């Protein structure tokens, strides 16, 4: 079992229990830096952590037991990458769409417009596996479940471009998608997941306001790589978690 047990774990008692994917790493790093007791289960680091799919989805037994053993809140960092899967790298057939609640966001005039309902369905389809994972955690945890939003997207195209392993898809594309598309997809993902959380009695914690610039993009000092925020961002999230925990 891979856990992120901070040095002060014994001294402070019950660690903060976190489970999910790679966005957890910013918080884990922040916990290490600040001496915060945290127990993190990062699926990326545990081959075979998730078994089956859909309603039959289960976690490997020791993970299920770990969730069941929690008295306090369980913080979910599940998923959070759908906006990057759809909007980090420019599709060979560039697309854009209009968010009905944010029609003031710029439109890419060179892109093909997809109906919003289609963008929503695609995002929802890609989110489905993560929502099933969250549903399983919800069923297992005895206390409160709190879902942490992934960080907002970066608008720094140059920096993103340097972090993308372009050699992974030769002859396909070499462009970062427009920042605005990424923002719309991130907002759409947040809308889908937060509404799903409300329906399933899960507290949804949006990303910290102070981490975003005036247009909602991740401030440079919190940037880590093409898909993640850094430990400084993790500290902001830790503060949110303490206030909710």
């Amino acid at each position, binding site marked *: 079992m891979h856990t992120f047990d901070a040095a002060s774990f014994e001294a402070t008692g019950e660690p903060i229990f976190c489970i999910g994917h790679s966005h957890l790493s910013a918080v884990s790093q922040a916990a290490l830096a600040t001496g915060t007791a945290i127990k993190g289960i990062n699926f990326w680091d545990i081959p075979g952590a998730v078994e089956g799919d859909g309603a039959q989805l289960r976690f490997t037994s020791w993970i299920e037991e770990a969730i069941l053993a929690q008295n306090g809140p369980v913080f979910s960092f599940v998923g959070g990458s759908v906006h990057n899967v759809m909007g980090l790298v420019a599709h060979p057939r560039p697309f854009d769409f*209009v968010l009905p609640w944010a*029609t003031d966001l710029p439109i890419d005039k060179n892109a093909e417009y997809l*109906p919003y309902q289609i963008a929503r369905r*695609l995002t929802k389809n890609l989110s489905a596996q993560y929502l099933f994972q969250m549903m399983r955690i919800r069923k297992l945890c005895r206390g409160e479940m709190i879902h942490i939003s992934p960080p907002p997207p970066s608008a720094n195209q140059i920096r993103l471009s340097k972090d993308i392993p372009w050699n992974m898809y030769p002859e396909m594309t070499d462009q970062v998608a427009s920042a605005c598309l990424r923002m719309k997809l991130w907002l759409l993902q947040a809308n889908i997941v937060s509404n799903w959380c409300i329906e399933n009695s899960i507290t949804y914690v949006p990303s910290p306001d102070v981490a975003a610039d005036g247009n909602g993009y991740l401030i440079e000092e919190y940037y*880590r*790589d093409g898909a993640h925020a850094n430990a400084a961002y993790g500290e902001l999230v830790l503060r949110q978690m303490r206030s909710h925990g």
Partner: protein
Amino acid sequence: MNHPYRGLPDERYWSRSIGNCSDDGWDPVTNPPFQVEADARIITAGSCFAQHLARYLNSNGRTCFVTESSHPLMDSQLAKEFNYGIFTARYGNIYTSRQLLQLWQRANFQFVPKDSVWTCGEHRFDPFRPSIQPGGFASALEFELDQAQHFAAVRRAFSQAYVLVFTLGLTECWASKEDGAVYPIAPGVLAGEYDPNRHELLNLSVDEVVTDIAEFVRNVRISNPAFKLILTVSPVPLAATAEARHVGVASCYSKAVLRIAAEYAAKLPGVYYFPSYELITAPGQTYFAADRRSIREEGVRRVMSLFFRHVLRDEGEPREVGEERDVFLDRVRDVVDVICEESLLDEHK
């Protein structure tokens, strides 16, 4: 004794060409004035029956010229639900000659209907393709952008096509009293609101249908002089009539008007009538389903088989082809996964 019928080929006699033949043993297609080459751009439009042609062309590996295709991110089910790939562009069913003419005029800004959008709460519906996407358009901006994209696709389709196969479906249609804009379906049925003070029923005459088609062809040929048109008449009876008479009588009248109009329109250069209507109706109820309206697949296959044989050059029988899948999401998911794994490596330093 000599007479004008002596020595005529068998196809001129009902008894020899239909009466003594099996349902699929007769062939009324004679002398198409042109054939469609393998690489020619074919576009389709019309009533429900017209949808079959695109389906069969695609299943034969000879795709229709599609100018408003689904984005590769969509799977075939989602694309179909949002009416991509049904016709060349996402214009939905075009039941009447007037609707076809006005589509071209609207796409070229020659006609801007006053009744241009229907509002239902935050949602917007296109009066001229009200069922094109489930629930309508999510915002006014989305409607405007989509319509501009759609019109561009329509212009490209008709301007670059070699041939349009257009199936005439109806003569009855509802129109705006303000400017004559014709709707595909009565306001209020799928969206919008019916207002007898603003909307009226038209029942197009032979002259009107012929004039619409002639004007449409003339307009398209301004940008596409080689443009050709294949007309068919849908054998599907009217689902309902707004005229004060039996739907069976109204249906027979409507089909008769369309059939005669097609005959006259086919006298125009580069316009041909393909007898799918006769192929389905002449054998009686053979090709009709139990509702006496829907066409059974055998009938569609029979029509398409003769269309392929006579109209398309060097074509065999229709066959099935598989669906292609976009690998973009898989690739990018791999990329994001790599970044995620790299973040773990970074964490373990």
